[in-house]
């Protein structure tokens, strides 16, 4: 099996797998003592595999969230929606391919508006999509679809997967901060249900701009954080290498976000991560989205806005 991408915490495991593969290719008839060694290593491999994946620390989960083979927005859109119509452009500057925007129909027949950060699936598409880091025009395209969703009463489903909004000169000059702020304002007032799904990286304000609503569903190994573990480590230790410690401090995993009252639901992933077997994960996301939308059925538009405001109002811990 060719492995495109080995994560740091998997290295010892994969080294052992390679060694075992090598031994198995040797002729055991000529070297009978190998049989015992192979058996011992195979046993060790089972033990190590369990140890590697049983208790993933937050930093390991961040690595899984960033795995290049992890299912992306386009995989979810392709699998969960029929009759997809993608739309383009912010009508002001350009079309940002780092954001997917469009409409689709869920298996149960619900017609919805869809937004998502869009990482590429290979180098070529990653360059076109700026590795999933939007510019202001990406958020402005997203806002167009939010307004259309509100105008035509279509629930909004968003997929979160970005390292963050792009920190470049042009992005700043074209109003990255304004685009995010306006998106937050717009989301807070949408008179339709808003369901957000954290499928990979939830990088700060760039994720938040399409990343809060009436429900937040998180994949087990997706993260959502105020700052990247590397940048946090840089600030705390003047060294990006302490990212693992920073990741643990930030409480950015799906499970921790449920405890903090920010996420509502965690969708389990197969051992090792969603990239190992994406079909059941994508299916489970579809089921969770349909259920969340069914939960919100029958709530009047003003009720949705009020409930969403109260949900936001409840976030924050302080003494009074």
């Amino acid at each position, binding site marked *: 099996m060719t492995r495109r991408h080995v994560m740091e915490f998997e290295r010892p495991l994969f080294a052992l797998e390679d060694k075992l593969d090598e031994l198995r290719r040797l002729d055991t008839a000529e070297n009978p003592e190998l049989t015992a060694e192979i058996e011992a290593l195979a046993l060790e491999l089972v033990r190590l595999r369990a140890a590697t994946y049983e208790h993933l620390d937050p930093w390991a989960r961040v690595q899984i969230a960033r795995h290049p083979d992890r299912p992306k927005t386009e995989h979810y859109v392709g699998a969960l929606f029929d009759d997809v119509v993608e739309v383009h452009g912010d009508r002001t500057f350009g079309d940002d391919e780092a954001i997917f925007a469009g409409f689709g129909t869920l298996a149960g027949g619900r017609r919805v508006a869809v937004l998502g950060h869009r990482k590429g699936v290979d180098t070529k598409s990653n360059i076109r999509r700026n590795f999933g880091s939007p510019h202001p025009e990406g958020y402005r395209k997203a806002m167009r679809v939010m307004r259309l969703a509100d105008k035509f009463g279509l629930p909004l489903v968003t997929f979160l997967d970005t390292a963050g*909004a*792009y*920190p*470049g*000169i042009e*992005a*700043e*000059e*074209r*109003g*990255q*901060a*304004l685009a*995010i*702020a*306006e998106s*937050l*304002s717009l*989301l*807070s*007032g949408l008179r339709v249900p808003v369901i957000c799904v954290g499928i990979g990286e939830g990088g*700060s*304000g760039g994720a*938040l701009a399409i990343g*809060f609503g009436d429900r937040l569903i998180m994949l087990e190994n997706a993260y*959502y*954080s*105020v*700052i990247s573990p590397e*940048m*946090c480590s840089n*600030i*705390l*230790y003047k060294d990006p290498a302490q990212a693992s*410690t*920073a990741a643990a*401090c*930030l*409480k*950015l995993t799906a499970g921790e*976000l449920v405890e*903090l009252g*920010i996420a509502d639901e965690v969708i389990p992933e197969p051992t090792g991560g969603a990239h190992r077997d994406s079909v059941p994960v994508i299916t489970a996301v579809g089921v969770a989205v349909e259920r969340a939308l069914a939960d919100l059925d029958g709530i009047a538009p003003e009720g949705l806005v009020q409930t*969403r*405001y109260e949900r*936001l*109002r409840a*976030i*924050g*811990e*302080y*003494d*009074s």
Partner: protein
Amino acid sequence: MSVTDWFSQRERRRYTRTGGGQGRPGPSEVADGIWVQCPGCKRALLERELAEKVRVCSGCGHHFAMTPTERIASLVDDGTFTEIDASLTPRDPLGFVAVKSYAESLSAAREKSGANEAVLTGRAAIAGAGVVLGVMDFRFIGASMGSVVGERVTRAFELATEERLPAVMVTASGGARMQEGMLSLMQMAKTSAAVRRHSDAGLPYLSILTNPTYGGVTASFAVLADVIFAEPGAMIGFAGPRLVEQTIRQKLPKGFQTSESMLKHGMIDRIVARTELRDTVALMLSYLTPRAGGGAGV
């Protein structure tokens, strides 16, 4: 103890002797006779004179940082500021412990600033007109926005909405308060939602961006104002200049992310010198009076 008493007592802790009215300390013995070098023109300025001239260099017009007390004194009618929500104080919801624990950072910030959080909010009057005012304090963990900053700003907008008052926010911030993790990030959404309700009620909001305003504060309530002013030479942006430089691996253009560059790119309405700020804010707000019948309209 009333909030005003508490407020002036807190100020007394920072100055050895207070003169002047409530919340507006006069020059102290400690500050008296201290010389400060202007980073703009390198001139040596007398601290006492700087304080009298709203902390603007008489030589080159460089705007020095102001404490919230100085800001309030320079911006609102004498003695009209009354703080709200002063009793809201931070917790350590994540149990954040790295090199320094969040609890230690908080106590160092309290020590350094004499404040209990990074924003002061309250009622005030500017040229006789009532407003709800917020002033951020960069000395308090870089005026980062955690739960308390988010809550105080949100409550300020809610109060302004309820009492049909204009809101004025004087911002400065390094961004979100990372020690509060996602609770901090979500304050961006919370404050933006509160600003929207205020706006939907047809009420005016004016923000004044001061040096430096970055990250989660810029990308939420700071830029959602009806009219945005900035002080001259203030650094304003979403991503910090070092991060941008590291990302693009190029030198940044001269003047990048200054108020002057923000004005040129159409991101703010006016650059207003601090000496003109009170009058300009009053004049601007006089145009932005809610129309009869209310509502945001178009």
